[in-house]
Protein backbone atom coordinates (compact mmCIF):
# COMPACT_ATOMS: atom_id res chain seq x y z
CA UNK A 1 0.00 0.00 0.00
CA UNK A 2 1.39 3.46 -0.85
CA UNK A 3 2.76 5.44 2.06
CA UNK A 4 1.71 9.07 2.34
CA UNK A 5 3.45 11.53 4.64
CA UNK A 6 1.29 14.25 6.16
CA UNK A 7 3.37 17.09 7.57
CA UNK A 8 1.71 19.54 9.92
CA UNK A 9 2.43 23.26 9.63
CA UNK A 10 4.95 22.98 12.49
CA UNK A 11 6.79 20.08 10.89
CA UNK A 12 5.33 17.02 12.64
CA UNK A 13 5.30 14.03 10.31
CA UNK A 14 2.61 11.39 10.15
CA UNK A 15 3.26 8.51 7.77
CA UNK A 16 0.27 6.34 6.94
CA UNK A 17 -0.54 3.67 4.41
CA UNK A 18 -3.44 4.72 2.22
CA UNK A 19 -5.23 2.12 0.08
CA UNK A 20 -5.07 2.59 -3.70
CA UNK A 21 -7.94 4.62 -5.04
CA UNK A 22 -8.65 6.60 -1.90
CA UNK A 23 -7.86 10.29 -1.96
CA UNK A 24 -5.16 11.94 0.13
CA UNK A 25 -8.01 13.70 1.97
CA UNK A 26 -9.71 10.38 2.82
CA UNK A 27 -6.38 8.99 4.00
CA UNK A 28 -6.14 11.86 6.49
CA UNK A 29 -9.73 11.62 7.72
CA UNK A 30 -9.63 7.84 8.17
CA UNK A 31 -6.40 8.09 10.14
CA UNK A 32 -7.57 11.00 12.29
CA UNK A 33 -4.84 13.29 11.01
CA UNK A 34 -5.46 16.82 12.20
CA UNK A 35 -5.09 19.67 9.75
CA UNK A 36 -7.44 18.57 6.99
CA UNK A 37 -11.07 19.44 7.70
CA UNK A 38 -12.88 18.36 4.50
CA UNK A 39 -16.15 20.01 5.54
CA UNK A 40 -17.95 19.20 2.28
CA UNK A 41 -16.87 15.56 2.33
CA UNK A 42 -14.91 15.64 -0.92
CA UNK A 43 -17.32 17.28 -3.36
CA UNK A 44 -14.81 20.04 -4.20
CA UNK A 45 -17.10 22.62 -2.67
CA UNK A 46 -15.35 24.01 0.42
CA UNK A 47 -11.53 24.27 0.13
CA UNK A 48 -10.95 22.96 3.65
CA UNK A 49 -8.74 20.03 2.58
CA UNK A 50 -6.13 22.37 1.14
CA UNK A 51 -2.52 21.12 1.19
CA UNK A 52 0.85 22.15 -0.22
CA UNK A 53 2.59 19.66 -2.49
CA UNK A 54 6.38 20.07 -2.87
CA UNK A 55 7.74 20.85 -6.32
CA UNK A 56 9.22 17.34 -6.89
CA UNK A 57 5.78 15.76 -6.42
CA UNK A 58 3.57 18.51 -7.79
CA UNK A 59 4.20 17.70 -11.47
CA UNK A 60 3.56 13.98 -10.88
CA UNK A 61 -0.01 14.65 -9.88
CA UNK A 62 -2.85 14.63 -12.37
CA UNK A 63 -3.52 18.09 -13.76
CA UNK A 64 -5.95 20.30 -11.90
CA UNK A 65 -9.43 20.89 -13.21
CA UNK A 66 -10.54 24.53 -13.48
CA UNK A 67 -13.04 23.94 -10.70
CA UNK A 68 -10.24 22.98 -8.32
CA UNK A 69 -8.34 26.20 -9.12
CA UNK A 70 -11.56 28.14 -8.55
CA UNK A 71 -12.04 26.48 -5.17
CA UNK A 72 -8.41 27.13 -4.22
CA UNK A 73 -9.11 30.86 -4.59
CA UNK A 74 -11.16 30.43 -1.41
CA UNK A 75 -8.54 28.44 0.49
CA UNK A 76 -6.57 29.70 3.46
CA UNK A 77 -3.28 31.14 2.15
CA UNK A 78 -2.96 29.28 -1.14
CA UNK A 79 0.27 29.42 -3.16
CA UNK A 80 1.56 27.88 -6.37
CA UNK A 81 2.03 24.50 -4.66
CA UNK A 82 -1.55 24.36 -3.44
CA UNK A 83 -3.90 21.47 -4.15
CA UNK A 84 -7.13 20.17 -2.71
CA UNK A 85 -6.30 16.81 -1.17
CA UNK A 86 -9.75 15.44 -2.10
CA UNK A 87 -8.65 15.67 -5.73
CA UNK A 88 -5.43 13.66 -5.32
CA UNK A 89 -6.13 9.97 -5.77
CA UNK A 90 -3.56 7.65 -4.26
CA UNK A 91 -1.78 5.43 -6.78
CA UNK A 92 1.45 3.39 -6.81
CA UNK A 93 3.15 6.33 -8.54
CA UNK A 94 2.39 8.43 -5.45
CA UNK A 95 4.03 6.02 -2.99
CA UNK A 96 6.16 8.24 -0.72
CA UNK A 97 4.21 11.43 -1.44
CA UNK A 98 4.73 14.13 1.16
CA UNK A 99 2.25 16.93 1.64
CA UNK A 100 2.27 19.85 4.05
CA UNK A 101 -0.87 21.17 5.68
CA UNK A 102 -1.58 24.86 6.19
CA UNK A 103 -1.62 26.30 9.71
CA UNK A 104 -5.40 26.14 9.55
CA UNK A 105 -8.12 25.56 6.97
CA UNK A 106 -10.52 28.40 7.70
Amino acid at each position, binding site marked *: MPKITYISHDGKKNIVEVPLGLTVMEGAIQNNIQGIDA*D*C*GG*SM*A*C*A*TCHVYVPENWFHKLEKMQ*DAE*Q*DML*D*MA*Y*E*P*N*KNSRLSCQITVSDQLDGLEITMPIKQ*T
Partner: protein
Amino acid sequence: MVKTDAIIIGAGPTGLFAVHQLGIIGLKCEVIDNLNRAGGQCIELYPDKPIYDIPGIPECTGEELTNGLLKQIEPFKNNFHLNQRVEEVKQEKNSWVVKTNKGNLFSAPNIIIAGGVGSFEPRKLSLKEAEKFEGNQIFYSVTNKDLFKNKKISIFGGGDSALDWALELSKLNEITLIHRRNDFRGATHTLSKIKEKEQEGKIIIKTPYSLKSINGDKTMTGIEIENEDGKLEKIKSDYILSFFGLVMKLGPIADWGLNISNKTIPVDTKSFQTNKEGIFAVGDICTYPGKLKLILSGFHESALAARACFKRAKPNETYKFEFTTASKSIHGRLGIIK
Protein backbone atom coordinates in the same frame (compact mmCIF):
# COMPACT_ATOMS: atom_id res chain seq x y z
CA MET B 1 -41.63 34.47 22.37
CA VAL B 2 -42.86 32.14 19.63
CA LYS B 3 -44.26 28.85 20.93
CA THR B 4 -44.34 25.83 18.66
CA ASP B 5 -44.04 22.03 18.62
CA ALA B 6 -40.51 21.86 17.22
CA ILE B 7 -37.72 24.29 16.40
CA ILE B 8 -35.67 23.31 13.39
CA ILE B 9 -32.14 24.68 13.25
CA GLY B 10 -30.93 24.66 9.65
CA ALA B 11 -32.90 25.07 6.43
CA GLY B 12 -30.92 22.68 4.26
CA PRO B 13 -32.61 19.74 2.54
CA THR B 14 -32.75 17.69 5.75
CA GLY B 15 -34.27 20.55 7.77
CA LEU B 16 -36.82 21.23 5.03
CA PHE B 17 -37.88 17.61 4.90
CA ALA B 18 -38.21 17.62 8.69
CA VAL B 19 -40.80 20.39 8.23
CA HIS B 20 -42.71 18.04 5.93
CA GLN B 21 -42.50 15.06 8.23
CA LEU B 22 -43.66 17.13 11.22
CA GLY B 23 -46.40 18.67 9.10
CA ILE B 24 -48.00 15.46 7.96
CA ILE B 25 -48.26 14.20 11.54
CA GLY B 26 -49.86 17.48 12.55
CA LEU B 27 -46.98 19.22 14.30
CA LYS B 28 -46.02 22.86 13.82
CA CYS B 29 -42.49 24.14 13.56
CA GLU B 30 -40.34 27.22 13.11
CA VAL B 31 -37.15 27.10 11.02
CA ILE B 32 -34.04 29.16 11.79
CA ASP B 33 -31.05 29.55 9.46
CA ASN B 34 -28.00 31.79 9.32
CA LEU B 35 -28.14 32.19 5.53
CA ASN B 36 -30.50 34.59 3.78
CA ARG B 37 -32.43 31.81 2.04
CA ALA B 38 -33.37 28.17 2.46
CA GLY B 39 -31.31 25.38 0.91
CA GLY B 40 -28.16 25.11 3.01
CA GLN B 41 -25.13 23.62 1.26
CA CYS B 42 -27.31 22.74 -1.75
CA ILE B 43 -28.00 26.37 -2.50
CA GLU B 44 -24.81 27.91 -1.17
CA LEU B 45 -22.11 25.51 -2.30
CA TYR B 46 -23.47 23.77 -5.37
CA PRO B 47 -26.70 25.35 -6.68
CA ASP B 48 -25.82 24.38 -10.27
CA LYS B 49 -24.12 21.06 -9.69
CA PRO B 50 -26.26 18.04 -10.59
CA ILE B 51 -27.06 15.53 -7.86
CA TYR B 52 -27.63 11.96 -9.07
CA ASP B 53 -28.58 10.06 -5.93
CA ILE B 54 -31.95 11.38 -4.82
CA PRO B 55 -34.31 8.38 -4.98
CA GLY B 56 -36.74 8.70 -7.87
CA ILE B 57 -35.04 11.81 -9.26
CA PRO B 58 -32.35 10.70 -11.74
CA GLU B 59 -30.77 14.16 -11.90
CA CYS B 60 -31.42 17.51 -10.28
CA THR B 61 -29.36 20.52 -9.19
CA GLY B 62 -29.04 21.75 -5.62
CA GLU B 63 -31.32 24.62 -6.48
CA GLU B 64 -33.97 22.39 -8.07
CA LEU B 65 -33.96 20.08 -5.06
CA THR B 66 -34.37 23.04 -2.71
CA ASN B 67 -37.24 24.45 -4.77
CA GLY B 68 -38.92 21.05 -4.84
CA LEU B 69 -38.66 20.70 -1.07
CA LEU B 70 -39.98 24.23 -0.52
CA LYS B 71 -42.97 23.44 -2.73
CA GLN B 72 -43.54 20.19 -0.87
CA ILE B 73 -43.77 22.00 2.49
CA GLU B 74 -45.93 24.90 1.25
CA PRO B 75 -49.15 23.41 2.73
CA PHE B 76 -47.70 23.60 6.24
CA LYS B 77 -47.05 27.36 6.07
CA ASN B 78 -44.18 27.24 8.51
CA ASN B 79 -42.18 30.39 9.28
CA PHE B 80 -38.57 30.85 8.27
CA HIS B 81 -36.32 33.00 10.44
CA LEU B 82 -33.36 33.66 8.18
CA ASN B 83 -30.14 35.65 8.54
CA GLN B 84 -29.85 34.64 12.16
CA ARG B 85 -27.88 32.12 14.10
CA VAL B 86 -29.08 30.30 17.18
CA GLU B 87 -26.87 31.41 20.05
CA GLU B 88 -28.43 29.91 23.17
CA VAL B 89 -30.43 26.84 24.02
CA LYS B 90 -31.82 26.61 27.55
CA GLN B 91 -34.17 24.23 29.32
CA GLU B 92 -37.31 25.62 30.96
CA LYS B 93 -39.43 22.91 32.57
CA ASN B 94 -40.39 20.58 29.73
CA SER B 95 -39.50 23.01 26.99
CA TRP B 96 -36.41 24.26 25.25
CA VAL B 97 -35.96 27.99 24.82
CA VAL B 98 -33.90 29.09 21.88
CA LYS B 99 -32.43 32.56 21.38
CA THR B 100 -30.96 33.86 18.13
CA ASN B 101 -28.28 36.50 17.63
CA LYS B 102 -31.06 38.88 16.59
CA GLY B 103 -32.63 38.43 20.00
CA ASN B 104 -35.62 36.39 18.79
CA LEU B 105 -36.93 33.83 21.27
CA PHE B 106 -38.59 30.50 20.56
CA SER B 107 -39.98 27.87 22.87
CA ALA B 108 -40.79 24.25 22.05
CA PRO B 109 -40.62 20.81 23.63
CA ASN B 110 -38.46 19.66 20.70
CA ILE B 111 -35.45 20.93 18.79
CA ILE B 112 -34.29 19.31 15.59
CA ILE B 113 -30.72 20.28 14.76
CA ALA B 114 -30.23 19.97 11.00
CA GLY B 115 -27.20 22.18 10.97
CA GLY B 116 -24.99 20.47 8.39
CA VAL B 117 -21.38 21.25 9.20
CA GLY B 118 -22.40 24.36 11.12
CA SER B 119 -23.42 27.84 10.11
CA PHE B 120 -22.04 29.57 7.06
CA GLU B 121 -19.84 32.56 7.76
CA PRO B 122 -17.65 34.68 5.52
CA ARG B 123 -14.10 33.47 5.25
CA LYS B 124 -11.95 36.09 6.96
CA LEU B 125 -8.59 37.48 5.93
CA SER B 126 -5.76 35.47 7.43
CA LEU B 127 -3.75 38.41 8.80
CA LYS B 128 -4.20 39.05 12.51
CA GLU B 129 -4.31 42.84 12.02
CA ALA B 130 -7.46 42.37 9.94
CA GLU B 131 -9.50 41.75 13.11
CA LYS B 132 -8.63 45.20 14.41
CA PHE B 133 -10.18 46.95 11.43
CA GLU B 134 -13.08 44.56 10.79
CA GLY B 135 -16.39 46.36 10.66
CA ASN B 136 -14.74 49.80 10.33
CA GLN B 137 -12.45 49.58 7.36
CA ILE B 138 -12.48 45.90 6.47
CA PHE B 139 -15.71 44.28 5.32
CA TYR B 140 -16.78 40.83 4.16
CA SER B 141 -20.06 42.03 2.73
CA VAL B 142 -21.50 45.37 1.68
CA THR B 143 -24.47 46.79 3.50
CA ASN B 144 -23.99 50.51 2.91
CA LYS B 145 -22.54 51.58 -0.43
CA ASP B 146 -22.46 55.28 0.55
CA LEU B 147 -19.64 54.61 2.97
CA PHE B 148 -17.31 54.05 0.01
CA LYS B 149 -17.96 57.29 -1.88
CA ASN B 150 -14.71 58.98 -2.96
CA LYS B 151 -12.57 56.52 -1.01
CA LYS B 152 -9.72 54.26 -2.02
CA ILE B 153 -10.94 50.69 -2.05
CA SER B 154 -9.02 47.44 -2.37
CA ILE B 155 -11.11 44.41 -3.26
CA PHE B 156 -9.78 40.88 -2.77
CA GLY B 157 -11.13 37.78 -4.51
CA GLY B 158 -11.59 36.31 -7.96
CA GLY B 159 -15.20 35.21 -8.01
CA ASP B 160 -18.53 36.81 -8.81
CA SER B 161 -18.90 38.72 -5.53
CA ALA B 162 -15.50 40.39 -5.90
CA LEU B 163 -16.10 41.17 -9.59
CA ASP B 164 -19.66 42.44 -9.15
CA TRP B 165 -18.70 44.77 -6.33
CA ALA B 166 -15.64 46.01 -8.21
CA LEU B 167 -17.91 46.96 -11.10
CA GLU B 168 -20.57 48.52 -8.90
CA LEU B 169 -18.20 50.55 -6.76
CA SER B 170 -16.07 51.64 -9.73
CA LYS B 171 -18.97 53.98 -10.55
CA LEU B 172 -18.09 55.93 -7.40
CA ASN B 173 -14.34 55.64 -7.06
CA GLU B 174 -11.08 54.07 -8.06
CA ILE B 175 -10.94 50.38 -7.29
CA THR B 176 -7.95 48.09 -6.95
CA LEU B 177 -8.90 44.48 -7.58
CA ILE B 178 -6.39 42.01 -6.19
CA HIS B 179 -6.40 38.30 -6.94
CA ARG B 180 -3.94 35.47 -6.32
CA ARG B 181 -3.83 34.32 -9.97
CA ASN B 182 -4.34 35.82 -13.39
CA ASP B 183 -7.61 34.03 -14.12
CA PHE B 184 -10.85 35.27 -12.65
CA ARG B 185 -13.83 33.03 -12.12
CA GLY B 186 -16.92 34.89 -13.15
CA ALA B 187 -19.64 35.20 -15.73
CA THR B 188 -18.26 36.03 -19.21
CA HIS B 189 -20.13 39.31 -19.53
CA THR B 190 -18.89 40.41 -16.08
CA LEU B 191 -15.31 39.67 -17.10
CA SER B 192 -15.60 41.72 -20.27
CA LYS B 193 -17.06 44.64 -18.33
CA ILE B 194 -14.14 44.44 -15.90
CA LYS B 195 -11.76 44.63 -18.88
CA GLU B 196 -13.56 47.76 -20.12
CA LYS B 197 -13.29 49.43 -16.73
CA GLU B 198 -9.62 48.51 -16.56
CA GLN B 199 -9.01 50.21 -19.91
CA GLU B 200 -10.91 53.27 -18.70
CA GLY B 201 -8.64 53.33 -15.66
CA LYS B 202 -11.52 52.87 -13.26
CA ILE B 203 -10.35 49.48 -12.04
CA ILE B 204 -6.71 48.63 -11.43
CA ILE B 205 -6.10 44.89 -11.52
CA LYS B 206 -3.26 43.40 -9.49
CA THR B 207 -2.55 39.72 -10.22
CA PRO B 208 -1.12 37.34 -9.09
CA TYR B 209 -0.95 39.12 -5.77
CA SER B 210 -1.99 38.29 -2.19
CA LEU B 211 -2.30 40.44 0.90
CA LYS B 212 1.00 40.65 2.78
CA SER B 213 0.38 43.27 5.46
CA ILE B 214 -2.00 45.96 6.63
CA ASN B 215 -0.55 49.33 7.55
CA GLY B 216 -1.81 51.81 10.09
CA ASP B 217 -2.21 51.92 13.83
CA LYS B 218 -5.64 53.19 14.84
CA THR B 219 -6.71 53.79 11.27
CA MET B 220 -5.77 51.62 8.33
CA THR B 221 -3.84 53.74 5.85
CA GLY B 222 -2.82 51.19 3.30
CA ILE B 223 -1.83 47.66 2.50
CA GLU B 224 1.10 45.80 1.08
CA ILE B 225 0.62 43.03 -1.45
CA GLU B 226 3.07 40.39 -2.61
CA ASN B 227 3.28 38.25 -5.72
CA GLU B 228 4.64 34.71 -5.99
CA ASP B 229 8.17 35.92 -6.68
CA GLY B 230 8.17 37.98 -3.51
CA LYS B 231 7.68 41.32 -5.27
CA LEU B 232 6.02 43.78 -2.89
CA GLU B 233 3.77 46.69 -3.68
CA LYS B 234 2.15 49.28 -1.43
CA ILE B 235 -1.42 50.42 -2.07
CA LYS B 236 -3.19 53.26 -0.31
CA SER B 237 -6.51 51.95 0.95
CA ASP B 238 -9.29 53.44 3.04
CA TYR B 239 -11.29 50.25 2.83
CA ILE B 240 -10.73 46.57 2.14
CA LEU B 241 -13.51 44.38 0.82
CA SER B 242 -12.69 40.70 0.93
CA PHE B 243 -14.70 38.01 -0.86
CA PHE B 244 -13.31 34.55 -0.25
CA GLY B 245 -16.60 32.72 -0.01
CA LEU B 246 -18.11 31.10 3.03
CA VAL B 247 -16.85 28.67 5.62
CA MET B 248 -18.87 26.45 7.90
CA LYS B 249 -18.38 26.82 11.63
CA LEU B 250 -19.99 24.67 14.28
CA GLY B 251 -20.23 27.81 16.39
CA PRO B 252 -22.44 27.99 19.48
CA ILE B 253 -23.81 24.42 19.03
CA ALA B 254 -20.71 23.33 20.91
CA ASP B 255 -21.92 25.17 24.03
CA TRP B 256 -25.36 23.60 24.46
CA GLY B 257 -24.27 20.66 26.57
CA LEU B 258 -24.53 18.15 23.75
CA ASN B 259 -22.05 15.35 23.29
CA ILE B 260 -19.90 16.25 20.32
CA SER B 261 -17.35 14.08 18.60
CA ASN B 262 -15.33 15.25 15.61
CA LYS B 263 -17.62 18.23 14.99
CA THR B 264 -20.66 15.89 14.83
CA ILE B 265 -23.35 14.97 17.36
CA PRO B 266 -23.77 11.30 18.31
CA VAL B 267 -27.41 10.17 18.21
CA ASP B 268 -29.51 7.13 19.02
CA THR B 269 -30.68 5.75 15.68
CA LYS B 270 -34.10 4.79 17.03
CA SER B 271 -35.18 8.42 17.24
CA PHE B 272 -32.11 10.50 16.35
CA GLN B 273 -32.21 11.96 19.82
CA THR B 274 -28.99 13.40 21.21
CA ASN B 275 -27.86 13.04 24.84
CA LYS B 276 -30.49 15.68 25.71
CA GLU B 277 -34.12 14.64 25.82
CA GLY B 278 -36.11 16.48 23.17
CA ILE B 279 -33.07 17.58 21.18
CA PHE B 280 -32.60 15.66 17.97
CA ALA B 281 -29.86 15.85 15.35
CA VAL B 282 -30.29 14.87 11.71
CA GLY B 283 -28.34 15.15 8.46
CA ASP B 284 -24.61 15.79 8.15
CA ILE B 285 -24.32 17.02 11.73
CA CYS B 286 -25.35 13.72 13.35
CA THR B 287 -23.21 10.64 13.67
CA TYR B 288 -23.83 6.98 14.45
CA PRO B 289 -22.25 3.68 13.39
CA GLY B 290 -22.51 3.45 9.60
CA LYS B 291 -23.52 7.09 9.09
CA LEU B 292 -23.44 8.22 5.46
CA LYS B 293 -23.40 11.94 4.73
CA LEU B 294 -25.99 11.68 1.99
CA ILE B 295 -29.10 13.79 1.50
CA LEU B 296 -31.22 10.64 1.34
CA SER B 297 -29.91 9.55 4.74
CA GLY B 298 -30.90 12.95 6.10
CA PHE B 299 -34.45 12.41 4.83
CA HIS B 300 -34.75 9.11 6.70
CA GLU B 301 -33.31 10.64 9.83
CA SER B 302 -35.83 13.51 9.65
CA ALA B 303 -38.74 11.09 9.29
CA LEU B 304 -37.79 9.26 12.47
CA ALA B 305 -36.92 12.38 14.47
CA ALA B 306 -40.26 13.98 13.55
CA ARG B 307 -42.20 10.96 14.88
CA ALA B 308 -40.13 11.07 18.06
CA CYS B 309 -41.15 14.73 18.54
CA PHE B 310 -44.81 13.77 18.73
CA LYS B 311 -44.74 12.39 22.27
CA ARG B 312 -43.27 15.54 23.81
CA ALA B 313 -45.40 17.88 21.69
CA LYS B 314 -48.69 16.09 22.39
CA PRO B 315 -48.20 14.06 25.57
CA ASN B 316 -51.90 13.27 25.90
CA GLU B 317 -52.33 11.89 22.39
CA THR B 318 -51.13 8.66 20.87
CA TYR B 319 -49.20 8.78 17.64
CA LYS B 320 -50.69 6.59 14.95
CA PHE B 321 -48.70 5.65 11.89
CA GLU B 322 -50.46 6.52 8.61
CA PHE B 323 -49.63 6.51 4.90
CA THR B 324 -49.93 9.68 2.81
CA THR B 325 -51.74 7.66 0.13
CA ALA B 326 -54.61 6.70 2.39
CA SER B 327 -54.88 8.98 5.43
CA LYS B 328 -57.74 11.49 5.39
CA SER B 329 -56.12 13.51 8.18
CA ILE B 330 -52.87 13.77 6.25
CA HIS B 331 -54.80 14.83 3.13
CA GLY B 332 -56.46 17.50 5.25
CA ARG B 333 -53.08 18.78 6.45
CA LEU B 334 -51.81 18.82 2.87
CA GLY B 335 -54.90 20.76 1.78
CA ILE B 336 -55.96 18.11 -0.71
CA ILE B 337 -59.69 18.24 -1.33
CA LYS B 338 -61.25 15.02 -2.49
